[in-house]
């Protein structure tokens, strides 16, 4: 941000600030709701907001992202040891871990449950995928596909290589009568690779039926890995940034959230305020090696490789990912790719797929890191319905104000009361 020097420029700045403050939308969306965070942070002409799309359906759990992140950002060593939690010996995101790969082992029962639950999300208008496109004014029923990009053969092949086979056992493609009715023309491509048209109402119940049927018949795979690379969400309304008392956390021109390590005084408030448990205070002063001494005792988290993306390079994790499970780019495009991918998976019966963080109407105004998950968020250690704490701040202050007035009144009454002894 440039600092205006001439009085005329100052006047212009003040006028534009006043205009902004007149705009009700501006204030309304400061604590919650869809907004452009870089513009709200007064960046004059910000570039498009950047973000991640982490597609867990094609993550192979190689942890290259973890290693690349540690190397590039010179993060100190964590405890070395076995956790006993599948292949996850990292544990959780924290001051020294900015990418964390989660491993969950699940049985057929879980897969079927996830599939049924995901299909139900479609039936309900897929709240976490569909954004505002839910209500259908004419039908009085949710219209799940209003205006959203349809998964087509071209789109799905353009998107990403598919790790999940699109015609595995227990999917709709495996039910001949179902798929032959609904398949679009394949244009000579492998039918299993062709995404179907966007499923409507009947398809949703058909999917649910297919998932239940598959479980009953025992055609669901008897085991699956859930592998997901977690990272800072770079929220539209970032709790850590909101509560930081020193201004050490700031919003970059890319709409991401970064800690300035030479400003942070380690108060730890951001740690308690993050609804995802991402940011943490680097505590251990005995950790040496690659640790830069300046960063001990202060808050640390993913910067979305601010240094790299400022020079048009990919973040280290996205660069290192061998399966394109981690994709980086303009957030709009990331959200679109995520939608296309989830639709392709759903159309082929993998109704367990669902998006996380792609809804700008959610409790944090949508995240800069969008995820495609294959089960409920809490299975991966993610909060199912996070709301940034400052969403309630006006009411919190109101209650505290009333309490303060109560105190003053109480003190006044105590001294005005009769009786000197």
């Amino acid at each position, binding site marked *: 941000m440039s600092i205006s020097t001439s009085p005329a420029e100052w006047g212009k700045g003040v006028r534009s600030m006043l205009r902004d403050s007149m705009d009700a939308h501006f204030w309304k969306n400061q604590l919650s709701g869809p907004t452009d965070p870089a513009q709200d942070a007064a960046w004059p002409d910000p570039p498009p907001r950047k973000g991640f799309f982490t597609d867990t359906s094609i993550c192979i759990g190689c942890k290259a992202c973890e290693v690349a992140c540690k190397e590039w950002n010179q993060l100190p060593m964590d405890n070395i040891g076995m956790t006993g939690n599948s292949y996850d010996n990292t544990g959780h995101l924290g001051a020294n871990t900015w990418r964390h790969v989660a491993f969950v082992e699940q049985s057929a029962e879980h897969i079927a449950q996830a599939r049924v639950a995901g299909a139900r999300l479609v039936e309900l208008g897929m709240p976490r995928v569909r954004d505002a496109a839910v209500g259908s004014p004419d039908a009085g029923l949710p219209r799940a596909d209003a205006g959203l990009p349809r998964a087509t053969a071209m789109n799905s092949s353009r998107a990403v290589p598919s790790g999940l086979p699109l015609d595995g056992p227990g999917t709709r493609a495996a039910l001949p009568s179902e798929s032959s009715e609904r398949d679009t023309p394949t244009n000579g491509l492998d039918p299993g690779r062709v995404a179907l048209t966007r499923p409507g109402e009947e398809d949703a119940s058909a999917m649910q039926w297919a998932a239940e049927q598959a479980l009953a018949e025992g055609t669901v795979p008897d085991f699956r890995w859930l592998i997901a690379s977690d990272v800072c969400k770079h929220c539209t309304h970032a709790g850590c940034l909101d509560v930081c008392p020193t201004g050490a956390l700031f919003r970059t021109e890319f709409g991401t959230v970064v800690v300035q390590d030479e400003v942070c005084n380690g*108060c730890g408030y951001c740690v308690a305020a993050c*609804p995802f448990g991402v940011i943490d205070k680097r505590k251990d002063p005995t950790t040496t090696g690659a640790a830069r001494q300046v960063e001990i005792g202060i808050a640390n988290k993913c910067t979305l490789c601010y240094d790299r993306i400022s020079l048009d390079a990919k973040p280290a994790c996205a660069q290192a990912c061998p399966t394109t499970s981690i994709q980086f780019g303009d957030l709009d495009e990331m959200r679109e790719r995520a939608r296309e991918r989830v639709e392709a998976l759903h159309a082929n019966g993998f109704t367990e797929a669902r998006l996380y963080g792609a809804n700008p109407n959610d409790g944090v105004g949508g995240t800069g890191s969008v995820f495609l998950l294959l089960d409920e968020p809490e299975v991966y250690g993610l909060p199912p319905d996070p709301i940034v704490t400052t969403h309630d701040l006006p009411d919190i202050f109101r209650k505290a104000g009333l309490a303060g007035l109560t105190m003053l009144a109480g003190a006044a009454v105590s001294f005005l009361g009769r009786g000197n002894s």
Partner: protein
Amino acid sequence: MSDAEEQRAAGNTNGPVPQPDTDAGESGAVTATAAAPVRRRRRRRDDIMVPDAAFDSYYGRSVVKPAPWDYKIPTYLYSGGLAAGSALVAAGAEMTGRTLLQRNARLTALGALGVSTVALVADLGRPSRFVNMLRVMKLTSPMSIGSWILAGFGAFTGVAAASEVAKFVIKPHSAINRYLPIVDRGASIGAGFFSAPLAAYTAVLLSNTATPTWHGIYRELPFAFVGSGMAAAGGAAMVTTTTRQTAPARRMALGGAALELTAFRLLEHNAGLVGEPLRQGKAGQLLGASTALSLTGIGLTVLAGRWRPAAVLAGLAFNGASATLRFGVFHAGIESAKDPKYTVVPQKERIAAREAQAALSWSSNASTPGALRPPTSQSPQELA
């Protein structure tokens, strides 16, 4: 994965884990509070080893991180409340001519402020950078606001205490004596002005976090905290000052303790699942002790408040109650952050409630499931 691991993966390890093999365990403590994830509890085949849990977690790990704070923060909360209340006692005493009460309360306020500031600075990861708190003023950060409140309060309390010291040092016939009353009044008003925000904001500090218990009790907590601060300050005056001048302090302590007890009962009652940590473990013991001490203080004050030994005991009880309240609420919050149950279950309930509401209102096309607000006029393409 072994049985034990599966169990950890499926449920939580800290709280009451639903027993794997009994329906009672399954539908007991957790089910009562977890209406949302019904479909997770559908009947399973007998050969599946995973115990049914009311919610899933990632190996029982916490979702949110507990605040990286230790005993220094609740110490700060207590001494901050004591300082704020004492400044009010001092201001009242100054305006009603109770010079002894005024002096003692002012010195108490300064001492408590010193303790709270030291505790706050010592808790920082980089204490030498404390002054960075004053490089911004941020309405969304209660800690930023609190730092400025503390700075303002500190300035006036410092002046007030200096004025008390001046009364010892300055010779009786000095010309400065003429101006002391003006300084006194100014310091009283200033410290009084900052005292209520200082006592109340500490509740905001805890509530404006993702820590389930602290956030869940934000409506009542500031009342409990200001009551606690008043009781502590009134109590401190009863300890330090002769009963001839402490009638208002006794009234303030009684009123404060009553407010604290009432607000806390209400808070426990309204908190639901996230109120559970307030009743368990160390927090439960501390908060139980707080209630007992408050009642002791009230009893002693009402029965024998004008008898100095009883007044001293009552004052100590009020301060004990205030301190244990802060430590108890602090520990309850830390525990609630460590257990994923308190994060996940209320959020699942929130989703279920929203879905139910959306299902009802679809016919009228009024709301969006999964959204906190109705859909904007933007088209999906614009949002995408």
